[in-house]
């Protein structure tokens, strides 16, 4: 009850920001588009002809392809633009929590500092999950009802997007506690987000390095930092029903998230306000 109220208050606080309202409106429009504009005339079982905005295409298309096309597109958008927006919208939550006069009220309640930070963290993840699943479940239902094909991989993809956000938000939590600045923590988190594809391609960087040490540092960074690029691929493969070759990027990224969150909690515990 006490813990839940911290989650709820964070949730309510995020909702008061226009970003999430905008996100929900955009999601609704996208869903309406799929619902109204996409007409599938099922020809026989797995085949259909498709019309978008009433424009009939002559091609007969595999239903499975339509599902993968639409849901894959939504997954990619959510993984890139969605996470980007979600990080932006939540970047102020931790610095706001630490404001003098605001944090005091939380600490004066019979809740531990760990509960305060976890409640804040879960509140942020909860509102992002709501936004992401609103679009994912909406699209999924519409597509499944239209085609009769229920692609559960897409839902798993949605869960992975939320998880990726949760890992990155742990990093933003740490940066927020240390720097007390929303914009700064956002920028560094973005940097790491963009660094990931680069690190993935580290084989081609090795040749450019003057010393072996740098190679080892880059290797170390690769294994330590969240592997958003690989997580993106896994999301895609899940959505498209493809086999996942390795889950290792997920486990190491998850370990990073947990470690960073616990480190944040430790620093938060020792802080004076």
């Amino acid at each position, binding site marked *: *009850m*006490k813990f*839940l*109220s*911290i989650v*709820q*208050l964070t949730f*309510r*606080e995020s909702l*008061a920001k226009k970003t999430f309202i905008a996100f929900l409106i955009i999601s609704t429009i996208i869903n309406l588009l799929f619902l109204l504009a996409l007409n599938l005339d099922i020809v026989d079982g797995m085949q259909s002809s498709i019309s978008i905005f009433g424009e009939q295409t002559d091609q007969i298309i595999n239903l499975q392809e339509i599902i993968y096309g639409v849901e894959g597109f939504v997954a990619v958008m959510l993984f890139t633009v969605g996470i980007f927006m979600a990080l932006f919208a939540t970047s102020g939550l931790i610095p706001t929590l630490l*404001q*003098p*006069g*605001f*944090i*005091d*009220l*939380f*600490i*004066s*309640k*019979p*809740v*531990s500092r760990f509960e305060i930070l976890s409640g804040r963290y879960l509140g942020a993840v909860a509102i992002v999950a709501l936004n992401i699943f609103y679009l994912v479940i909406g699209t999924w239902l519409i597509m499944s009802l239209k085609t009769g094909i229920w692609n559960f991989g897409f839902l798993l993809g949605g869960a992975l997007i939320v998880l990726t956000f949760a890992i990155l938000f742990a990093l933003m939590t740490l940066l927020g506690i240390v720097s007390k600045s929303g914009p700064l923590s956002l920028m560094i988190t973005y940097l790491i987000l963009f660094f990931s594809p680069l690190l993935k391609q580290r084989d081609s960087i090795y040749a450019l390095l003057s010393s072996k040490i740098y190679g080892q540092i880059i290797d170390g960074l690769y294994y330590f930092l969240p592997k958003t690029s690989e997580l993106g691929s896994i999301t895609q493969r899940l959505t498209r029903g493809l086999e996942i070759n390795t889950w290792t990027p997920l486990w190491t990224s998850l370990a990073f998230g947990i470690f960073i969150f616990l480190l944040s909690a430790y620093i938060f515990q*020792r802080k*004076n*306000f």
Partner: protein
Amino acid sequence: MYAVETFELSKFYSHGRIKALQDFSLQVEKGKIFSLLGPNGAGKTTLIKVLIGIVHQTSGHAKLLNQSINKVSVHKKIGYLAENHRFPEFLSAHQILHYYGKMAGLGPSQLKKQIPALLKTVNLHRWENVKIRKYSKGMMQRLGLAHALLNEPELIFLDEPTDGIDPVGRRQIRDLLKSLRDEGVTIFVNSHLLSEVERMSDEVAILKQGKLIQRGTVEDFISIKEQYQIRLDSADTMQNICNDMKVPIKRENDLFTVSVQDDQQLNRLIDRLRQSKTMILAVIPKKITLEDYFIDIIEDKKGESD
């Protein structure tokens, strides 16, 4: 059992450069209005923050209601009005009391009972559904007070509670605090305003540069030094008599300022003056208020000795 007990509590900031609180030991009895008085920067807020766990002490320890301050469970019985409290602006007073009441561990039925009653007590019931960004400083302060009372605490910490409140509101707050005290609640007030402290406190402690300088009842403080100005036609014997009686004395020409213990001592002094045939031209009472005493203490630079 005391409501508040501290044992040589110290808090240093900036790697020890700022000594906000130094070896501070204090006991506050239950059911009293206790005021901690001191100029800005004395360390009053730091003390409350240490007691509530908002900052961690550098050394020493403390107990609230006989429980270590390290345990958050004691917060169930504690109310706190922060000096510059900040609530989420997009909420109304009612919503704020709802969320923070839940955080304090109140159930739905308690919230339903407590919130309207408290809003009425602090006179915000007509504003309960207005977003607080429209509130004045005084209204925010009253909301903060309602928030501090939500969980029907046994011990309340109020950091500059009448800040930004008009005289009528101040009086209402004083009356509210007194009636809570009469119900057995212990009230710990931080203030730099003597006039406030004087009017409502059962006990006062004076803090200066992180050190406890003096504590006692308001009456104690006022009666410590009753001062009189005495004007004489000749100053010859005055000094001797006062030395003899151990009465502190200051002289400005023919005007002596004496600090006597009480009226009896004053009369004995006058008797001795008259026996020595000194002509008394005037005896002017200069009853020292807590304020004068306070300013004396601050200007005397007491507590700066080491």
